[in-house]
């Protein structure tokens, strides 16, 4: 991440209202450095998809500016389109056409032809393990295969910036894990910038180098997953001692531990010692060294980091699961529908 390179994606103060006075975006700011994976995290209806639609030239903002790969999305949508790959929630591969035919058409739309096109299509089929299914109509594909084809469609012209809108929504756990691995590999590719949206905390945490938490059409906080969680004062640190300490040992331990920088709320109870630390990982060596100094053996040590859920609670002012209740309702309806 060199500071001198222009951002791959930069959106400033995007505002978008849909008919019926629905404010989808209310001053959205996003900056993505080239070659990184950036996650927009938020519940359904937070404005993630609208942001992606504007950045991919599908929708126009009411106000605000955005550039993608250095091109203004409003003034030069065509240049933006050549530079981006888009994997939408519904990418709509033609169900009656085969996987290969879908890829060929997509390639042609970007001007690929002949041997170069055939080679690229073969590469992608191979890479996404679709070679065996290449001659079959897409309607017979499993959810995971379809999603892999969607990603392949987005990559056919070797884009600079790839947009993944809810890449694993609707996938079963196995397919989801496979997709995560695939996205992880993509992220390692030279120069590819990925902007992904998700409403899964776990997904953002696992895939994105930087995360922006979106709520009600704007970014409420942004940073690396670790820094976001680190801002919440206090990882929980738990230690288990080899043997229980007496009253004297307890006083000695407390006295030693409380003096350590960034360590608070030390509690010694028999063999169990717990504390809060500003940064659990940083505090751990200090703690272990302190135990060694006073001659108490440690059997086990764990650090529980605050989850993104805690981060969301702090910045959006409500629990993630509450904000996402819309999605839960839909799930409930789907379950009820399935039961009938």
């Amino acid at each position, binding site marked *: 991440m060199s500071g001198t390179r222009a951002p791959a994606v930069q959106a400033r103060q995007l505002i978008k209202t849909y*008919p019926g006075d629905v404010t989808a975006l209310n001053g959205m700011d996003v900056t993505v450095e080239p070659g990184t994976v950036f996650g927009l995290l938020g519940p359904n209806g937070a404005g993630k998809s609208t942001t992606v*639609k504007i950045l*991919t*030239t*599908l*929708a*126009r903002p009411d106000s605000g500016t955005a550039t993608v790969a250095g091109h203004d999305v409003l003034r030069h949508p*065509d240049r933006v*389109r*050549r530079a*981006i790959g*888009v994997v*939408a*929630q*519904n*990418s*709509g*591969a*033609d*169900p*009656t*056409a085969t996987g290969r*035919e879908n890829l060929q*058409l*997509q390639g*042609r*739309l*970007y*001007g690929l032809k002949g041997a170069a096109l055939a080679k690229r299509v073969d590469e992608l089929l191979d890479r996404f393990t679709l070679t065996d299914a290449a001659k079959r109509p897409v309607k017979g594909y499993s959810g995971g295969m379809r999603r892999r084809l969607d990603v392949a*469609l987005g990559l056919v012209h070797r884009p600079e910036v790839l947009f993944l809108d809810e890449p694993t929504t609707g996938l079963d756990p196995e397919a989801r894990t496979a997709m995560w691995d695939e996205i992880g590999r993509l992220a390692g590719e030279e120069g590819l910038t990925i902007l992904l949206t998700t409403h899964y905390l776990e997904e953002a945490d696992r895939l994105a180098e930087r995360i922006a938490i979106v709520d009600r059409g704007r970014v409420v906080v942004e940073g690396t997953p670790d820094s976001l969680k680190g801002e919440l004062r206090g990882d929980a640190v738990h230690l288990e001692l080899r043997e229980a300490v007496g009253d004297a040992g307890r006083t000695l331990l407390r006295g030693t531990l409380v003096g350590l920088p960034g360590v608070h709320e030390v509690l010694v109870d028999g063999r169990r010692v717990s504390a809060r630390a500003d940064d659990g990982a940083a505090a751990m060596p200090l703690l272990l060294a302190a135990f060694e100094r006073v001659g108490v053996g440690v059997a086990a040590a764990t650090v529980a980091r605050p989850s993104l859920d805690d981060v969301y609670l702090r910045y959006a002012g409500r629990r993630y699961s509450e904000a996402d209740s819309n999605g839960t309702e839909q799930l409930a309806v789907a379950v009820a529908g399935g039961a009938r």
Partner: protein
Amino acid sequence: MSTAVSQTWYMTQRQLMVFVRQPAFAVITLIQPVIWLFLFGNLFKKVVELGGFGTTSYLDYLVPGVVAMSALSSNMWAGMGTLEEIQRGTLNRFLTTPVSRAALMNGNVVNNGLVTAFQSVVIVLLGLLGGADYPGGIGGIAILVAASVLLGTIFGALSNALGMLVRERESIIGINTFLLLPLTFLSSAFMAPSQMPSWMRHTADFNPLNWAMVAGRSAMSEHPDWGDVLSRGGALLGLAVAAVWLSIRTFRSYQRSV
């Protein structure tokens, strides 16, 4: 320019393949014309004896009408396909590529035109098999096919516009069901104009379906009335241009509403 042309071809080819891959569907769409030509045609065989049909074989009279009816009834569902592509996300996927926006719409028009031309020719051949006579020759048939393609373009474009505008299957189904029979019976499809009640005959003058029938039937007759052919054909062409323009406008408003 050549990019737009080749992209239009890719878009057309994509849709044609859907038609080609479903031969059963193509056969099903010909069931109705066959029923009109051979069941209805035989049932009402003697109707020509009333006079004014310009031929002694009811089948001769019926073929242009059935060709135009089929063009209408197959193209008025075009919006369903467009709606499906919107809902499936296909249209948005194309819109995020550099593909020419015109190619996306033109692909629809060209595809519908080719399918309509194919169906029209098949119906003409079926009529020939059934013993129909086409004194106007190949030229007359070509004019009938052209008129039915224009008619199909009008209703295909309107149906697409409706699909993009309302985004509901029910609305398309409702409007089509509402329109199909009145348009059919307020035309010269089954009855010579001179035998029609006068209010129906005059209403039919404003019915594009009837324009296609009049132009095609006249061109295929022994003594074509070129004035009729040109006036009806010109009206169809004008309306087709207007309908396509309207669907392009609707497409733009769809893009704004995404």
